[in-house]
């Protein structure tokens, strides 16, 4: 505990939020991540690029605690989280979205956004409603507005359109008031106009919020991020500013075959 606290203090001084050291994930014989190192600073806006199967989502899963790494170390705010189950992440201010939406399909938009907040507070075992709940409800409604769902706030999530479900997915991550948000392909399946709205939303986030973004849409990724990391076959192959990445020959080589897929409508 003591060493944890000391580590946390020193990490804070450096402003380091997330630290991955030689993270390896193997699914049977398939190595999805082959020793990834990554450091994310407070307030970072980092985009993760790479072709299908590069291991981007697996990296998210490791950070979020949904997948335990085969080897390596995950440190969040100076606390070793390698073995910590997913449900302890929200207390560290971590929130994520899923590539394939994970909503409470039988509950309304408002209840989805409400529930997203109660887990962290410990209120979920309560049988009575209280003032805190009113606050959560208020915030849920405000978030519905933010992610353009105010007019469908009473609709069950399962009945929403695909685009609306993606918006709710993002809302559920943001409504927790996170310090560190991970968005897994938030723009996939959105129309051009919706993508533009999304970029504006991401740019309007509190600058203190740290953002890790997986995005196949280069335009969205390079506009929303200040730093880019490119992965291929479970390894980091390039990293730099959006401008550097735009002209990086290696990135072009990796993307050349699938350029059309990257820019076009991704499934």
């Amino acid at each position, binding site marked *: 505990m003591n060493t944890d606290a000391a580590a946390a203090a020193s990490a804070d001084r450096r402003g380091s939020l997330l630290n991955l050291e030689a993270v390896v994930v193997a699914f049977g014989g398939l190595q999805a991540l082959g020793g990834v190192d990554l450091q994310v600073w407070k307030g970072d806006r980092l985009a993760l690029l790479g072709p299908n199967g590069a291991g981007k989502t697996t990296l998210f899963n490791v950070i*979020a*605690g*949904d997948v335990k790494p085969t080897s390596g170390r995950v440190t969040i705010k100076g606390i070793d989280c390698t073995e910590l*189950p*997913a*449900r*302890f*992440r*929200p*207390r560290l201010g971590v929130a*994520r979205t*899923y590539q394939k939406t*994970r*909503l*409470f*399909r*039988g*509950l309304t938009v408002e*209840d989805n956004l*409400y*529930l*997203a907040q*109660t*887990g*962290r507070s410990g*209120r*979920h*075992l*309560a*049988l*009575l*409603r209280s003032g805190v*709940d009113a606050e959560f409800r208020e915030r849920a409604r405000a978030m519905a507005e933010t992610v353009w769902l105010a007019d469908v706030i009473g609709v069950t999530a399962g*009945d929403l359109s695909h685009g609306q479900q993606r918006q709710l997915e993002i809302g*559920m991550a943001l409504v*927790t008031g996170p310090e560190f948000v991970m968005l897994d392909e938030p723009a996939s399946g959105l129309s051009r106009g919706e993508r533009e709205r999304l970029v504006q939303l991401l740019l309007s986030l509190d600058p203190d919020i740290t953002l890790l973004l997986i995005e196949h849409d280069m335009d969205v990724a390079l506009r929303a991020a200040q730093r880019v990391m490119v992965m291929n076959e479970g390894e980091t192959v390039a990293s730099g500013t959006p401008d550097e990445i735009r002209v990086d020959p290696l990135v072009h080589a990796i993307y050349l075959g699938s350029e059309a897929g990257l820019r076009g409508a991704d499934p």
Partner: protein
Amino acid sequence: MSPTGAAPGRAQSRRTLRRLLSARNVVVAAATALALLLPLFGSNFFVEFVMTRTMILGIAAATIVFLAAYGGMVSLAQYLLAGVAGFMVGNAVVAQDAWSKGLKLGWNPWVAVLFALAVTTAVAFVLGALASRTTGIYFLMITLTYAVIGYYVFGSITPLSGFGGITGIDPPGLFEDHPQRMYLALVVLSVLVYVAFRVLAVTPFGLALQGIRDDPVRMASLGFNVSLHRTLAFTLAGFTAGLAGVFNVWWNGQIDPTSISIGPTLDLLIVAVIGGTLSLEGAWLGAFVFVAANNYLRNLPLVDHIGITEARFNTIVGVLVLLIMILSPDGLAGIIDRIRLGLRRLVHLSRGSGAGPAEAAAGSKP
């Protein structure tokens, strides 16, 4: 949408009132009133036999529906838990000098009830904790295993189950020789259980349970302790099944291991399926159909040619369940719901209004 100009407080209370006066609530209230008045005009057999049994099975089946509809867990252990309560009552109340078996503690019947409910709740907590990491078919299998093991445990620990059962279990004086009172108490208890489960659905606890039903992975990543939540829901359902078990043993006057074997366990699941595992009122509806079929249908012409009595009943119920499953996976409650929506659409059509589909899309909610 909301009436403009009205004070927000009044608009709010009017909205609350309108919500309370939904068609569903009105029907349930009417059914409750009918059930409470039944002793005034129903035959003794119908009240003390058919309807009393309906209420007991209804409460027990409601715990299955509660777990299935809100928690996504189909439990086969509910009849076992009712049986645990029954055995505890039996062991506790039978007097030392009575001509019966079991522990014969000779306690006050109300103390026995508290004891039985405490034991049942504790057992449910342990069983729930052990099953809380599984879902779907695995949860079903684990709870089926509980039911089978429970049967053998009571069968082999004879001091507890008194070789072949405990007999002469008397209800408390309040109900002894007053079957109508017992029936009325069961109606009141049914209403309490029904209301409690429905209110629970909108509490933070109930909403989180439904979140776990829809996506446990998301819930964990939002900071919820999913298995603890499942365990607590299972414990609550176990306690409620215990209540049904207490009345069951009072009503039967005896209990033996066979009465918690796989047969009655599956019967209770059938009750829940007939009514519809997604709707709470379906539990009592299913119980009524089941008990009525058990008591009346076997003497029907044609049916009376099928084998012996038990086979007759099983055949009828089997066909019934098959029909309902084919017609409506949501059981009778689902069928009623569809008829209601169909009627509403007809009304809309005859009024020439095109605003039908939106309402029709809002399907049945638990």
